[in-house]
């Protein structure tokens, strides 16, 4: 019955969504820092957002019995301006000791540009120097395959980073094998039109096994579904998967990865 949604942008969701998630068995969420749908005009705008992720949102989640954790970074969609990125990265350390912060994320690439790559590497350095977990966003649609390769290569260049402490998210059929083969954790995002459907996520579990693989809704301000994880659980049940398998992919696996941070808690 219980599940964890390890990637969801609750600042964009309503209290009704929290209530529905709690009714479906959600006990914990983790919320990566991401693009708000518009470019923030200054580093101070990011600092306000980090305050929201570390103070306001955990309190809102607690009202529904859901544990809230977050990841901090400058996201790849706002990483084309190196000067702004440097200022934002300088803001991050003063928030890292807050009790719900798990690590750096969702960093990665969007259009696979040189500036995005440099900002990604600078934030990998921040994570490596402090021994933090990393959550990585891979690009959309036609940019995903190339971007995933660039991301794996960039992480491999930093020998301080243990792939077992990095989750590479939004994998699909053409990227999941290279992520898992390199020793990373992989996340499948369940979206209505792009990324994975619940059916394809179940196919990927059947094809690649249950090791180091999780599902999330990545629910945000766009077309997305905050109940995508329980819907994937239903899809797997419909196919005859056992309750143990379903619990593994939607609770035990995220628990295993996230518990590498002593701050992660899934109890209400």
């Amino acid at each position: 019955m219980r599940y964890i949604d390890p990637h969801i942008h609750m600042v964009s969701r309503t209290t009704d969504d929290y209530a529905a998630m709690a009714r479906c068995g959600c006990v914990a969420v983790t919320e990566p820092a991401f693009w708000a749908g518009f470019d923030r005009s200054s580093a101070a705008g990011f600092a306000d957002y980090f305050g929201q992720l570390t103070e306001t949102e955990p309190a809102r989640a607690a009202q529904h019995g859901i544990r809230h954790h977050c990841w901090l970074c400058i996201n790849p969609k706002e990483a084309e301006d190196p000067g702004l990125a440097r200022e934002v990265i300088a803001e991050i350390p003063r928030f890292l000791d807050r009790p719900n912060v798990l690590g750096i994320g969702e960093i990665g690439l969007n259009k696979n540009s040189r500036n995005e790559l440099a900002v990604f590497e600078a934030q990998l350095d921040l994570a490596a120097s402090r021994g933090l977990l990393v959550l990585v966003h891979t690009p959309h649609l036609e940019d995903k395959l190339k971007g995933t390769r660039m991301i794996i290569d960039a992480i491999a260049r930093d020998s301080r980073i243990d792939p077992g402490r990095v989750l590479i998210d939004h994998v699909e059929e053409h990227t999941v094998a290279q992520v898992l083969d390199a020793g990373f954790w992989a996340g499948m995002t369940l979206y209505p039109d792009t990324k994975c459907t619940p059916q394809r996520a179940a196919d990927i579990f059947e094809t690649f096994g249950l090791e180091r693989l999780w599902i999330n809704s990545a629910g945000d301000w766009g077309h997305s579904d905050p109940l995508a994880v329980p819907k994937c659980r239903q899809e797997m049940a419909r196919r005859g998967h056992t309750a143990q398998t379903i619990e593994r992919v939607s609770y035990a696996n995220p628990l295993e990865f996230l518990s590498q941070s002593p701050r992660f808690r899934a109890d209400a």
Partner: protein
Amino acid sequence: MSSKQRIADLYFLEHRAKLIDLAAFLDRVDRAGEPAEPPDFRVRALVRAAAVLTDGAGSRARRVLEMLSDPSTEPARSAAATKGASGAPRQGAL
């Protein structure tokens, strides 16, 4: 493991509808604009990728996704022009 019949029982009607939707979408593209106007590069990429469905080889989802991916390997010079993605590569659009 499910039998082939069970998979068909569970999913056939849903995917029958998706195939008809795709056919109707291509008809809609044909009806639009001037007859001589070529389809958008995304539609052409979709039609090319659809060949994967009937070639008899496996890993269809992976191969369709690969055909709809940017084949270049060098980092882009800049992302200043757009944040968005279109769903098919512009390079190689026939």
